């Protein structure tokens, strides 16, 4: 209704929400990789995904947040839970949880983290803090324009910048569906 961003109406407690969501995301992310029981991991991952969706909302990207909730939390995670219930987790949770090369993996990951932090420390000045000029109130419409194209005033139609990629993505999904069906079928 009101497409201009009202800065006064922007969330007052932005830092509080940010730190809360970030902490939730990271702590539950930690739980994902440490839990013995895969269902607990999956539940923790759901918390992570929802926190990240909250972060998207704080970045004025409501459409991505909506997609995150509906596809990730509502779709993919249900699939994960489904599969966890199908495969026998009783045994898996009693076995050794980490593979033999875990020190190497941990070291490499820590090195990666150090690399990231180093890069951030060095390049901090390169990151301007600018505001997205597109209003939150029409985020969906803008994204739709980029993906599908738009109707111009004179009755003409213009393809969006990503329409072709969008079609390719649908093809990818189709292939994935076929692949999953064929893979899980008992007898082909």
């Amino acid at each position: 209704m009101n497409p201009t961003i009202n800065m006064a109406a922007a969330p007052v407690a932005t830092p509080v929400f940010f730190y809360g969501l970030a902490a939730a995301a990271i702590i539950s992310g930690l739980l994902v990789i440490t839990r013995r029981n895969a269902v607990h991991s999956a539940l923790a991952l759901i918390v992570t995904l929802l926190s990240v969706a909250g972060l998207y909302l704080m970045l004025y990207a409501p459409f991505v947040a909506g997609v995150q909730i509906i596809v990730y939390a509502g779709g993919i995670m249900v699939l994960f839970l489904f599969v966890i219930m199908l495969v026998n987790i009783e045994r898996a949770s009693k076995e050794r949880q980490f593979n033999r090369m875990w020190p190497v993996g941990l070291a490499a990951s820590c090195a990666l983290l150090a690399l990231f932090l180093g890069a951030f420390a060095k390049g901090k000045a390169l990151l301007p803090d600018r505001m997205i000029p597109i209003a939150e109130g029409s985020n969906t419409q803008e994204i739709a324009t980029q993906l599908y194209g738009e109707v111009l005033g004179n009755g003409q139609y213009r393809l969006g910048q990503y329409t072709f990629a969008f079609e390719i993505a649908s093809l990818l999904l189709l292939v994935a569906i076929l692949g999953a069906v064929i893979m899980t079928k008992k007898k082909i």
Partner: protein
Amino acid sequence: MVPITTLHYLVVAAALFVLGTIGVLTRRNVVIVLMSIELILNAVNLNLVAFSRMWGNLHGQIFAIFIVVDAAAEAAVGLGILIAFFRNRETTNVDEIDLLKW
């Protein structure tokens, strides 16, 4: 309080990314490895959306949507493979999946 800048989001994303790599590199259970991959993809998405806001255009957000699509495809196929594998070998451990053919 310090205002929240793009860097804050990048640090969160980096942390999630590293958690994801730790999961992929150290866990044995394939399901959890796949979940860690989702963590990594989410970290990337968070970066993209943060940069999208920083540069003031929507390309990052659209890329994030594509990555979500990709994650859905990856999860479907990955879990499909897992089920097919579990049916043959009754295991979900990565280090027991060490031959190309059964």
